[in-house]
């Protein structure tokens, strides 16, 4: 009797983290642009990059409850690192990606000591401040970054020595999608580990965590560093696939956009950032086609509507629909 009774909780926890058919369908669907919309592969690669950036924010915001208004710092840092390496003569994409990831990780680790000490409003101000600091530093160091003109002269070598980064974005999307998928697998693994459970504990009740013996600050430093690495990878992908880096990669607007994307899709759901990125980027593409000056008007409308009607984002709303459907059936 005991062995059956003991196996049950373990089985329950296993079913919680099982791959669901809808997940497999989602990842198969990411291949559709190659067939259905081959003229939009450049956009698709931008979506994949933004999705990865949003995924990195989800790790700290959605799981550990760390609100950041300066997450672009790590994106931009990764972007400039990858861009500069290529400009200085080493255009190999994969090693460039790894170096940029490490650089963003070091920055993330250093800043995490400040981040782990604060919560709520103070944290928003500090992340905002750090983001602005780095953006302004990049602006003033124009000898290095190219300043407002952006970083010019980034030349990427062929991927694996075979695939050229072409105008149609075939290589760019394949590359970005593959990197996104690998990072997603890492994030999924992390979320389903004991460490992932501890992060949810911090989000759910930061006061109780020390009272059960949890080193909250060490946990936060760790996840913040990992998220910075991922944001840096996303930034590096953008630099490598567009062969340029602009100050915009470090801007407040990019930090705010990624927050909007994550909330739109649903924070703390792993797929929230991905779905949010698809909706946001496609909507921006379409709205700016209709009315290039006022597209933020429509994004604003969309955001207000989502927060009012779907407080847990698009995915939260979808999950509620599924539950309703099941209880009716």
């Amino acid at each position, binding site marked *: 009797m005991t062995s059956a009774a003991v196996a049950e909780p373990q089985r329950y926890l296993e079913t919680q983290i099982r791959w669901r058919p809808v997940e497999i369908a989602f990842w198969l669907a990411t291949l559709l642009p190659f067939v259905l919309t081959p003229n939009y592969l450049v956009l698709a690669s931008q979506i994949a990059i933004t999705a990865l950036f949003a995924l990195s924010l989800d790790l700290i915001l959605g799981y550990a409850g760390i609100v950041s208004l300066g997450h672009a710092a790590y994106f931009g840092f990764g972007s400039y690192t990858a861009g500069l390496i290529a400009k200085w003569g080493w255009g190999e994409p994969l090693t460039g990606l790894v170096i940029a990831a490490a650089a963003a990780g070091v920055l993330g680790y250093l800043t995490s000591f400040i981040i782990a000490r604060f919560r709520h409003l103070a944290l928003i101000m500090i992340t905002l401040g750090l983001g602005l600091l780095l953006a302004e530093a990049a602006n003033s160091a124009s000898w290095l970054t190219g300043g407002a003109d952006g970083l010019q002269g980034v030349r990427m070598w062929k991927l694996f020595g075979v695939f050229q980064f072409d105008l149609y974005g075939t290589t760019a999307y394949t590359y970005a999608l593959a990197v996104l998928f690998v990072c997603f697998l890492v994030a999924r693994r992390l979320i*389903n580990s*004991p460490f992932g*459970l501890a992060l949810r504990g911090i989000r759910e009740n930061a006061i109780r965590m020390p009272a*059960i*013996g949890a080193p*909250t600050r060490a946990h936060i430093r760790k996840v913040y560093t990992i998220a910075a690495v991922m944001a840096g990878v996303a930034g590096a992908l953008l630099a490598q696939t567009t062969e340029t880096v602009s100050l915009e990669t470090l801007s407040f607007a990019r930090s705010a956009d990624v927050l909007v994307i994550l909330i739109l899709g649903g924070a703390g759901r792993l797929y929230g950032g991905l779905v949010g990125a698809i909706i946001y980027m496609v909507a921006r593409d379409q709205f700016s086609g209709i009315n290039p000056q006022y597209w933020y008007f429509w994004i604003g409308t969309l955001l207000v509507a989502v927060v009012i009607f779907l407080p847990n984002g698009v995915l939260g709303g979808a999950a509620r629909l599924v539950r309703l459907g099941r209880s009716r059936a």
Partner: protein
Amino acid sequence: MSTSALSTRGLDKSFGSLVVASDIELDLPPGERYALIGPNGAGKTTLINLITGMLKPDKGQIFLGADEITMLRPEERVKCGLVRTFQINTLFPHLSALEAVTLAVCERRGYAGSWWEKLPAYGDAIEEAYAILLSLRLAASCYRPTRELAYGQQRLLEIALALATKPKVLLLDEPAAGVPQQESAELFSVIAGLSQEIAVLFIEHDMNVVFRFAHRIIVMAAGRILLQGTPKEIAADARVREVYLGRARHG
């Protein structure tokens, strides 16, 4: 001093001119059940906050066994075997009871930093968590999110989380707060049934419960320890009647 599971020496704490703890001397022997009583604002919860490190004392020392823990952070004190529960539910609303207790067990066993193995791979931690839930009669609802549990079950989960840290000293801040009287007796029978190796200090207002379950009673008033004694001694003391029992009768 070495015989005590927990002791404090000359603990002082004030917020500005408000003295919330003054010269607190406490000795809790291993395995004993002590009650901490006193009128509202006497400084009972403050004392628990001081002992567990959630507040820093202005003066004084805290010992766990023979080791001084005055300078340790709250989570380090938990690792040493000193744990508390909260008067107001301080739980993880969206985690299931099983996940919450498993989390506490993982933290104790040092698994919580591992981010590559899946949680179900740590079968020993899950088994232990489930056993704790089973012993507190929470096993049947352990898959439900905490926020959906009945209030009395949430009070039990408070204790389950504390037990998952394998404490030597357990500080219970009004464990039965808000629980109807008949259920409160049930809750205290759970507390009375805890391992004899754990020393328990509990805050409680219901005198029937206090006199039934406490081996010894500490009375606090205005940030000071007024007196300590066996339930019999306390019941006979005129000062206690005046400060605490008397007021309760009028209120």
